[in-house]
């Protein structure tokens, strides 16, 4: 009955015969899909995928080979395999085979167990999904089948609130005209309901017998991942029917408000759009991972260098000394020259020195990350009591990156806000209601609210509605005409549909939650919207049913920014009710109400200042004549497809008041944002919402403030406009008196200068950009300009952006800023962004779980982000860095001793230590203390990291572990190894034991060096551990104890008696460690290795303390002084900002209502509707859908047509 202004191109194309040839198949050779209903034999010919999904990787048989194959694709593992092979060559082997194979097998086994567990859970969830039941029409009767047995071409029956099992062509439904409502939250994150409709010919196939005979054939595009389009044709009874997305029910949707429906399976299992969209998640690596890999490569290079040096040494030694020493030790048969001997010794040294690339590094890192993930899962402070959901670390590989985040990209709806609208305040003819007052009449603080208003007088009231200001109800009860008119408007002027299942049990189906909130408010205050027909609205006004005649609905759009209804009341008066944005409505008001206007404006400002969404309500009485004239004109206008401004909509109206709806922010959002901003994390809001809503939320969550120098709004429609707007914004930033530099560089040059100039900008700016402009700004030649401008701003809000654009923005920052990005969102429209960002966080506990499934971390409230980043992330980063530093240190200290020994043993690749010590050093003697540190260490208590957000900065600047720190660790390791070798050497060279026998035998030397090494690295880990828990004590002392226990066991007589050739060190421990000289040597080595470290740390603490050092020190001093408690001040805001028009950007059910299409056939007199108009309604609905999808700005007014 209404016709959109322009015919959307998209629909035109979808209606045309599909052009298969242009479409490329997404995989395989499938060019088009044919599926015939009720004909399994026919469909089997094509071998379409079944509806069984498989996300698991292995089964029992393939696990071992596939998993091993995968593991050996890791460079580190292949490297160790290569070493193992080297060790099997006797000429080269300088170590027993087990020194490498034991750690390698351990590493592989741990990883395999982890993979197996992961896959087990995947199997479980696959099974759970595959075994869901659905009703399939087989041989003329409905049968229960598991989801995995559903085939392409089957007809299945869905019932209300069921998940759609596969991509279906909707055939018929319980609702009139084959309509059905679905919720697509899992697909695109939108929680509002969507309408799908069966094509007319099939919509009559309501009963099973007729469906069983249905033998239509669908020919359509091959599987693809485009959620919003589908093109195909139904061939049935020798005629063709075009199919579009409007006829499809996609897997993952949920059927709502529809008793049942039948659908024909078109795509099943992996071919469904849902599965096509959930591509395998890209494996994310942290920057530390990448750094680690680089460092391992460097170490490998270093290893080769050492090998070369020692090999040359060996060649020279063999040439000078070895040849003459041949009487005692002839060369190996294979060795014929000193050069060849050098070559062999190169490989031998590669084997010996391989421990500088620690095999246990990767496993330990995994273990630590796993520990951190468990801490996140276990965190009670990240547990949402309301939704009973704990935080969940879904990946265990990214934890330390949480401590390095610089940019947070946040979705708005459902993430910052709860997507719950609450009627919070109102202003009725100059009086404001809704303040929460305590007993004494003062404004009450949160948490000490009095009892809410009692609505028990009203049997139809909604119990969930809460209001705290009793005066409003009193006003209603007193019969204040303004108040009554106010609520009458709210109960009439909307597009909400009601459903009354039982008497008095009303359910409202609102297209936008705002409207739902308003109508519910009216309902509770005694103006109950009860039911509607296309021509009437029935309202229970203070208990009496009043039926208004509905003359017209002028639904909102972005230009008009208001919606109006024209009703005739039982007395016959025609009245226009209007609610809309203050900016539009206030200027159209009758000028005589100036005083009222100014008080209302004050109220509006006050509401907006509190971050509430406001609407202004007005009405106008129309006389019959005027209305008739207008209706006539409107009809003509619509027939002529004329888009001129409708005059009725701009007549003067009389002000009734204003409502304020709270778009409920999630708890703690402003505080979280403030805290994150203090931690130097930049927050960008990327939302699909309208600009006004987004900006409004920006204010209410304190991202935008009135103190800001300027908020730039970029809304250009063309490339040039956008460029110009960005340029202006930059110029303003540079021209401002705060600006440091004033030489503006040409944007085309996009030089580093641009960055530096803009980064020096002082003053606070914010940037708001809409999706249209963003599309231009993200083009290759402008993206840098955009990025620099945006990064110079304190806050960036992108509104009306598509999921793809969200991902693009993230990608842009990721690519050019070299900063760690985090994306947080709740809906499927955030999935792309979540997957793109370094870290994706999903808000769980909402309806859709797509975002959670794609995310790396999931929790249920935005405010937990501060804890995730500032506490868990910071600690993870700190621990990982400390761990890595220590790990490289200990391995260098351990391995380099061999290098020095090489100069004293003719470069013969003799190890300093016993081979068992080499095997066990990394996996037993030194692994647990450092793991305990990596898992439990804390530098400052968690409260402090919230109190001092600046503590987060070292992570962002990557200060704790970088190449410089790495070299310091290496240097320390080498220093230790030098002392570790030369002090015992100096002592042993001359000394004898206390019984006169030789002290400097090889085995005693080995035991002395090994013991002092274990002691030195244990003392060092003790120094590095900042937080000594019982576990740390246990592991550190335990490691030492284990070392001595194993040492004595290995050197015991019993083992020697059994394996004399394996345990050659018999008696060594007790003989060597009984010598005072040995202990004096060990003590000296420890002192000399540790003292410089302590001195250095102490001096650094005194001369150049970190913030964390200072915080810790302050802590210490405070403890002594019994300190006062600090607490974060809550930031209050007074704002002059006016909030905007508060509706969802999709049009409502206005047209649907007026057409009566969604009314039950029985309940309606449909006589007034011609068949022509009914079909045209569907047409126009379709157009509108595709129109609003393609051009968000929409058209001008919808002309009325009657």
């Amino acid at each position, binding site marked *: 009955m209404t016709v959109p202004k322009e015919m959307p191109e998209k629909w035109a194309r979808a209606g045309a015969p599909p052009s298969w040839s242009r479409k490329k198949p997404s995989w395989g050779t499938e060019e088009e899909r044919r599926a015939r209903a009720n004909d399994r034999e026919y469909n089997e010919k094509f071998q379409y995928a079944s509806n069984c999904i498989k996300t698991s990787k292995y089964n029992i048989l393939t696990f071992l080979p596939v998993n091993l194959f995968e593991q050996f694709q890791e460079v580190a593992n292949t490297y160790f395999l290569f070493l193992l092979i080297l060790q099997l060559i006797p000429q080269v082997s*300088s170590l027993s085979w087990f020194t490498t194979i034991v750690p390698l097998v351990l590493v592989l086994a741990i990883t395999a167990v982890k993979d197996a567990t992961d896959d087990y859970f995947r199997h479980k969830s696959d099974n759970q999904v595959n075994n869901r039941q659905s009703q399939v029409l087989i041989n003329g009767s409905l049968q229960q089948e598991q989801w995995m047995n559903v085939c392409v071409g089957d007809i299945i029956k869905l019932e209300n609130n069921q998940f759609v099992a596969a991509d279906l062509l909707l055939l018929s439904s319980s609702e009139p005209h084959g309509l059905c409502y679905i919720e697509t939250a899992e697909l695109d994150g939108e929680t509002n309901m969507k309408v799908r409709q069966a094509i007319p010919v099939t919509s009559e196939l309501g009963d099973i017998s007729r469906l069983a005979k249905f033998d239509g054939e669908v020919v359509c595009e091959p599987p693809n991942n485009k959620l919003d389009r589908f093109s195909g044709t139904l061939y049935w009874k020798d005629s063709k029917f075009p199919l579009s997305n409007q006829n499809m029910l996609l897997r993952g949707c949920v059927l709502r408000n529809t008793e049942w429906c039948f659908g024909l399976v078109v795509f099943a299992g992996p071919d469904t759009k849902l599965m096509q969209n959930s591509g395998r998640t890209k494996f994310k690596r942290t920057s530390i991972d990448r750094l680690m890999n680089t460092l391992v490569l460097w170490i490998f290079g270093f290893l080769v260098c050492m090998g070369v040096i020692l090999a040359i040494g060996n060649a020279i030694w063999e040439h000078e*000394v070895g040849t*003459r*020493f041949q*009487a*005692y*030790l002839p060369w*190996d048969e294979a060795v014929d020259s000193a050069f060849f001997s050098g070559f062999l010794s190169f490989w031998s040294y590669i084997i010996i020195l391989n421990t500088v690339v620690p095999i246990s590094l990767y496993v330990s890192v995994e273990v630590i990350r796993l520990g951190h993930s*468990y*801490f996140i899962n*276990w*965190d*009670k402070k990240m547990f949402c009591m309301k939704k*009973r959901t*704990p935080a*969940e670390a879904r990946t265990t590989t990214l934890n330390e990156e949480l401590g390095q985040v610089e940019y947070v990209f946040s979705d708005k709806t459902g993430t910052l806000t709860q997507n719950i609208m609450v009627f919070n305040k109102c202003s009725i003819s100059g009086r404001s209601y809704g303040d929460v007052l305590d007993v004494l009449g003062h404004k009450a603080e949160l948490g000490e609210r009095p009892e809410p208003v009692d609505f028990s007088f009203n049997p139809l009231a909604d119990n969930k509605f809460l209001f705290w200001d009793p005066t409003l109800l009193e006003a209603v009860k007193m019969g204040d005409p303004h108040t009554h008119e106010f609520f009458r408007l709210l109960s009439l002027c909307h597009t909400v549909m009601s459903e009354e299942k039982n008497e008095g049990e009303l359910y409202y189906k609102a297209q936008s939650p705002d409207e739902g909130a308003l109508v519910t408010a009216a309902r509770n205050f005694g103006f109950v919207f009860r039911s509607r027909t296309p021509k009437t609205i029935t309202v229970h006004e203070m208990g009496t049913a009043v039926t208004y005649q509905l003359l017209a609905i002028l639904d909102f759009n972005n230009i008009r920014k208001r919606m109006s209804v024209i009703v005739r009341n039982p007395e016959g008066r025609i009245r226009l009710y209007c609610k809309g944005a203050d900016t539009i409505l206030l200027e159209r008001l009758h000028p005589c109400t100036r005083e009222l206007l100014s008080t209302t404006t004050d109220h509006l400002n006050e509401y907006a200042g509190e971050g509430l969404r406001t609407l202004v309500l007005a009405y106008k009485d129309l006389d019959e004549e005027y209305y008739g004239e207008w209706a006539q004109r409107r009809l003509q206008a619509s027939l002529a497809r004329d888009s001129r401004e409708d005059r009725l909509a701009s007549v003067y109206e009389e002000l009734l008041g204003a409502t304020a709806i709270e778009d409920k922010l999630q708890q703690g959002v402003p505080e979280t944002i403030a805290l994150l901003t203090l931690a130097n994390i930049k927050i960008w809001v990327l939302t699909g919402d309208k600009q006004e809503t987004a900006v409004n939320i920006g204010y209410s969550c304190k991202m935008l403030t009135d103190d800001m120098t300027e908020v730039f709004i970029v809304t250009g429609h063309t490339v040039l406009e956008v460029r110009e707007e960005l340029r202006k914004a930059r110029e303003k930033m540079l021209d401002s008196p705060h600006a440091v530099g004033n030489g503006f560089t040409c944007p085309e040059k996009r030089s580093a200068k641009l960055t530096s100039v803009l980064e020096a900008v002082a003053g606070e700016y914010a940037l708001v950009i809409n999706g249209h402009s963003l599309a231009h700004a993200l083009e290759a030649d402008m993206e840098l300009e955009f990025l620099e401008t945006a990064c110079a701003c304190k806050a960036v809000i992108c509104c009306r952006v598509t999921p793809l654009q969200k991902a693009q923005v993230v990608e842009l920052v990721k690519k050019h800023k070299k900063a760690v990005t985090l994306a947080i969102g709740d809906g499927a429209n955030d999935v792309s962004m979540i997957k793109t960002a370094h870290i994706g966080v999903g808000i769980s506990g909402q309806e859709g779980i797509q975002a959670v499934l794609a995310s790396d971390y999931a929790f249920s409230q935005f405010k937990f982000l501060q804890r995730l980043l500032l506490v868990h992330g910071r600690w993870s980063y700190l621990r990982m860095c400390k761990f890595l530093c220590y790990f490289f240190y200990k391995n260098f200290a351990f391995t380099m001793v061999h290098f020095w020994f090489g100069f*004293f*043993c*003719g470069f013969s690749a*003799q190890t300093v230590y016993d081979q068992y010590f080499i095997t066990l050093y990394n996996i037993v003697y030194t692994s647990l203390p450092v793991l305990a540190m990596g898992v*439990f260490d*804390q530098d400052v208590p*968690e409260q402090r990291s919230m109190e001092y957000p600046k503590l987060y900065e070292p992570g962002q600047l990557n200060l704790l572990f970088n190449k410089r720190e790495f070299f310091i660790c290496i240097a320390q390791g080498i220093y230790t190894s030098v002392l570790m070798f030369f002090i015992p050497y100096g002592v042993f*060279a*001359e*000394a*004898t*034991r*206390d*019984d*006169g*026998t*030789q002290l*400097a035998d*090889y*085995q005693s030397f*080995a035991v002395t060096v090994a013991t002092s090494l274990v002691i030195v690295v244990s003392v060092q880990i003790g*120094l590095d551990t900042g*937080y*000594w*828990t*019982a576990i740390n004590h246990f592991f550190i002392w335990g490691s030492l104890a284990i070392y001595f226990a194993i040492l004595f066991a290995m050197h015991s*007589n019993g083992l020697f008696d059994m394996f*004399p*050739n394996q345990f050659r060190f*018999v*008696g060594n421990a*007790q003989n060597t460690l009984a010598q*005072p*000289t040995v202990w*004096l040597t060990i003590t*000296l080595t420890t002192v000399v290795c540790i*003292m410089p470290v*302590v*001195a250095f740390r102490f*001096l650094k*603490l*005194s001369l150049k303390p970190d913030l964390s050092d*200072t915080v810790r020190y302050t802590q*210490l001093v405070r403890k002594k002084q019994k300190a006062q408690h600090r607490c974060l001040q809550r930031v209050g805001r007074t704002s002059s900002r006016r909030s905007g028009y508060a509706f969802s950007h999709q049009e409502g059910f206005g047209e649907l209502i007026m057409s009566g299409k969604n009314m039950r056939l029985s309940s309606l007199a449909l006589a007034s509707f011609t068949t022509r108009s009914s079909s045209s309604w569907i047409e126009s609905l379709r157009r509108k859908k595709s129109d609003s999808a393609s051009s968000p700005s929409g058209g001008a007014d919808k002309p009325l047509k009657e």
Partner: protein
Amino acid sequence: MKRTSKDGRCKLPDNTALKQQQLPAYRLQLSATGVLSGFFATGVFCLGVGIILILNAKSIKEIEIKYTEICGNCAKLREDATNFDKECTCSIPFYLSETMQGNVYMYYKLYGFYQNLYRYILSRSNSQLVGTDLKDVGNCAPFSKSHDGTPIAPCGAIANSIFNDTIILSYNLNSSIPIKVPMLRSGITWWTDKYVKFQNPSYINLSSAFAGTTKPPSWAKPVYELDEEDPGNNGFLNDDFIVWMRTAAFPTFKKLYRRLNRIQYFTEGLPAGNYSFNITYNFPVTRFRGEKSVVLSTLTWSGGSSLFLGLAYTVTGAVTWLASFSMMAVHLMLKDRKMLFIQQ
């Protein structure tokens, strides 16, 4: 460990100190008093130990005589391996100006002999040496079997290269009749070596126990005839052999050869006077440009420790003290600034 699965979603995480990361712990803090006092204490300790060790080392009497050049003709003779059966002796007189009090130990010291080469260390068979399996010569390359295939006992490069000079110390009491200084050849090995690591094969007759094996190529006599005087000191249990088999860590090393039997004139130790070493020169060192010497030394509680340890301790102590003073200076200088910072 519990998994927070989708189904069991209403699980409140346990409120345990471990899971909430609230474990009671000691926070390590490098406080000024702690560090400085630690440094001072360490300094005192190191200096003390250093001085004691230096005094100790000073009290040790030691005399070393290199005899490669003194016995030059013998050395030359030994350079040619074919002269292995020609005996060469060499006498080295020396004068001991002071009495060597207490226990005196005689060592031989080799310079540039690499007992720590990888293949050298490996070249032995412990299962053979422990007497269980004489034929096990698997690790002994390149001295595992003789040309005719009989396994060598003891096999391996270590055993083959045994130090086989005989050194006899004589005391010229009245510058006329030299008295052979009584020396003990027992007690120069570790107890575990002598009683665990080395065992002869269990036969009544040692020579028959070693039947089916052959002596190492460089040896003059088979292993069961190493000591003609003491039949108990033969086979794998020969003390000199055991000492040699404990390979040295560095290319220059001294091994205990004999210790003074404190009887007769020598109850107090070695009195001052004229002595001479009578050396049967067998072990060739000039081939690999090595040197050998004989060492006489006394001992203290810490063993015959050299000056190195004492000096190292003293230096460390001194440096630690210096460091602690400078750290204290820095700390005191910055103390005011720090307090200011905290009050902010």
